[in-house]
């Protein structure tokens, strides 16, 4: 696929990652427009179903962004999310989607820089991986 532009869904927790995205905004720190943010109250709210639906509809990459470890507003939502991500990664491999397309990241509310950096890195990585098998299939 020429000029492949991946579509990446970022599920961001309200207290940290979503705020960090706002920080990136107010500091005008550019990151690729490929990243689309969906707000969730806590990264622990991320459902395997949400992730899988995103891939099913054609996402090339998904990441879940929560608070730094130990900083979760709801005590341990982010560590739960991380475990769930590990589980979904295995499942993705089973159905033939590279598990690298799914990531868990941690950013604190003040880390606008890191938010932009992570968004850029993940977009680069997914761009190298190419379109997801589902998206390729959908396009045909």
């Amino acid at each position, binding site marked *: 696929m020429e000029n492949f532009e991946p579509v990446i869904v970022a599920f961001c927790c309200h207290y940290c990652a979503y705020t960090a995205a706002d*920080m990136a*905004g107010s500091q005008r720190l550019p990151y690729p427009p490929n990243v689309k943010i969906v707000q*969730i*109250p806590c990264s622990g709210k991320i459902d395997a179903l949400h992730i899988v639906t995103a891939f099913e509809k054609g996402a090339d990459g998904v990441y879940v962004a929560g608070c730094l470890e130990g900083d979760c507003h709801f005590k341990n939502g982010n560590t739960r999310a991380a475990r769930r991500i590990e589980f979904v990664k295995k499942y993705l491999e089973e159905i033939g989607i590279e598990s690298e397309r799914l990531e868990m990241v941690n950013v604190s509310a003040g880390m606008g820089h890191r938010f932009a950096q992570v968004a850029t890195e993940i977009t680069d990585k997914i761009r190298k991986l190419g379109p997801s098998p589902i998206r390729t299939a959908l396009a045909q």
Partner: protein
Amino acid sequence: MQNSNTIETQNNKVLVVGGGLGGIRTALDLAEADKDVVLVDKDFTVGGLMTQLDRTFPTNNCDLCTIAPHLSESNRQEHIELMTMTSVDNVTGEKGNFSVTLITKPRYINLEKCTACGECLKQFPECVRFNPGLDHRAPTCMRYPQATPQAFSIDLAKCTDVQALVKVCPAGAINPDDMPIKRELKCASIVLSPGADLFDPSALDYLGYAKFPDVVTSLEYERILSASGPTAGKLLCPSNGRQPKKIAWIQCIGSRGLQKGAGAYCSNACCMFALKEAIITKERFQEDIETTIFYMDMRTFGKDYELYLNRAKDDYGVRFLRSRPHSILHHENEENLTLTYTQDDSTKQFEEKFDMVVLSTGFKTSEDTRALATKIGLQLNDDFFPVTDGFNPVATTKPGIYVAGTFQGPKDIPDTMVQASAAACMAGADLPFFAKKQAAEKEEERARDISLEEPKVGVFICDCGENIGGVINVEDLVEDAAKLPYVAVAKAEGHGCSRISMQNIRQTIEEEQLNRVVIGGCSPRTHLTKFQDLLGKAGLNKYLVEIANIRDQATWVHFGMPGEATTKAKELIKMAVGSAVKAQPLADQSLPMNKNVLVVGGGVTGMTAALRLADQGFQIYLAERSDKLGGLANKLIKTLEGDDVQAFVADLIAKVQNNKKIQVFTRALIVDHSGMPGMFKTGMQSGPQMFYRQIDHGVTILATGALSNRPSQYLLDQSPAVRTQLETQKFVYDNPDAVKKWENVVMIQCVGSRTPENPNCSRICCQNAIKNALAILAINPEARVFVLYRDMRTYGFQEEYYQKARSQGVLFVRYDLDTPPKVQAAGDQVDVTFHDAILGMEITVTADNLSLSTGMIADNDATEELAMVFKLPRTVDGYFLEDHVKLRPVDMSVPGFFVAGTAHSPKLIRESITQANAVAARAQTMLARDSINLGAASAKVDGNLCAACLICVRACPFDVPFINADGYSEIDPAKCHGCGICVSECPAKAIQLMQFEDDRILAKVEQLFERINA
């Protein structure tokens, strides 16, 4: 009679001077307790010093994120009138009836019109200046992105072409003819929290601060680290922009009387400040950077601060040098700076090169505040801080005028927050007492029933000045949005949050009978409440609005790619519409409030809190475990400052016992607890017969205290010459004749504290040792007193007593944890052997008295039991854990619970009293309500789908779900925190989180791809 539930009189307000963190806390506490406040700040936005910090200790969190919710416009209470750029000119009158002259400087911007679009800043970016000197300020300026008010300010003196500036503003808000305004204000009481200045080291030429750009103050270093600072968060040497490899911090600049012009006191927060900066620096650059702190005593005496110090040493490899720096030099042809210093155990001078040197500058009161304080008749101490009551540090010498924060004395943020709440309590109590008027209760807005209607969405898209409109074509977005399913109206709305646009939107909702609203604009974090309120006014349930954040997530971050930004903005709007269509009206959970208060613990803290609340008309149940009131204070005689504790406690007990609103239970044991915030039921057994009684209450205050520690060390309880400091005080007081015969007295600090078993500092012992040493010398000036210490932590004004003890000949000898003193019995005396670094040899002193500074430990058995009954968190060492160490230091994570005094952490009696006043203020913010609004975001179980598998019960971080009598999981909406963890764990998908229902999240994902795939 507007905005208030009390009868309007002229002086039913509290004036709060200073809009820093402390002033804001005071104002919010009062406002939430339904009391009217006028908050004035001389600056053009509120926020004070904290907004300049990069992060705060000990959580190393970003400040802006923690402070922003306190400041954002929508959160501001209807009881607060905010006046920026305003100073107090004069105060006359007395408590209950002050008359204040306020002067407001011209802002040259009309706040009603300014939308904070930033056009003026963009056009005039040159010569931006920030307070600490490293950053710059434009002729028009907003200090930080989340500033309140959300508007700019103009420095007209700097502007060369005023007319050009006026034209730049699309809202026409710039008014060069603005004039100063004088206003007379009547108020009942005044809280002064104007903050303090930082010491200016420019005059100390040997430190080279004025000469060498790489010598910076700690606040300037903070600005360099800060993402919103001059280097956008890159750590660079100011001289030449290279990344430093070695950084030194020099402590006590402007404190402890060390330099010319320095205060005699310890500035209290600088040790933690330096630790934080060193840790953050290490965190970011790890092995690439060396950090060294030059210090005399590390004063990490706050709650769990010692652990922070240990982390800096052990985990981050910050280097600590106990030393006296001599000078900072810059040799020609060298990039870096040369620091010369001596170490405390030798006279040799050392030299070391550093790329940057950070001066940890202390606090001092500003000339302005000194002048104001003097003008309004406050007495100042020798250090130019206000003289305050010995047992109530927020009360000044003038009734009705209170102080809080760094103006009261040097301190860190948690202590500032506690004092701010305490000041709110005291100042609020001076207001005339009026019964709440029932009729004035806010009229419940009637929301339209939309259950039978098809979704009818209105999309309103902001251009936010240039912020959105400058990058993408808003009309293009409007056209696109109009074609989306269910969208009835799509409009461009300029500045959606401006008053005019809000009216337009409201009108459109009403005329078109819309039942869903989507705003394409900025962040819901800052503006959702505003639009929710608008929906309420327009007759819609407030949860039927959704914001697409096309500014922060598209135009601001993709400004260089207008095409992509436009596409993304369209996607974001489509996602929001998809989600809004699925939105359902939700009801806020609310509960009736029970206005009784249970205070657990009848020491000074518990009694003080009980009295304050009883005076406000609330019924108090005071439960004390022992058979009498007074707690640990019964064993104290005098404070360091010489105030009589016994008389104070006796008076307090009498007041409590004579107060009709306080019911005291002694020998009381809490045995069971149920209910929810606002309507608790607690069972206790009390009295000699242990009668059971259940109490209904809305608020619980924990003031259970701590124990004085008694480790079996250094022959304590084996030799008659060995006493704890507490026993020493009593002995000296009771037996002056015996004390007169003492030749040698030895005191050992940190006995049972700062050890691997009990790593924290007990905070009170250093001043205790000084107090007893001075008392002994007063009786027997010939006695030789040795204090064997690790770090002398006489923080704040205590430092002056430390200096006094030194000048009276008390010998302070340092020891290490590895080489503690040795104690051997010698008849009725003891031989104490220790190493003297200056003499370089072991010394043995035969002591007539050995006082052990054993400090405090948590009352582990008691706190463990209470924590179990009430389901409350504790620290590792057994103290109750507050909700947020900085921002909510006396609130617990469970709503309706508060903690104060030594149950929170070791502290002095006056500090405990301050916390007691603070909890009283915090409790009033709940008790003022007739019901408690818990929001709508709670998890809800569908009983038909639930298999009672217990997964939610185990997953909930707050232990909320339980299996009810019908055999399925039930989640109490009043206890649910709304994280949604149970929802994602539930295998049967039987749980939904309101406001974040799965179908709404999925709708966003589906809409996104529908658009892309189309």
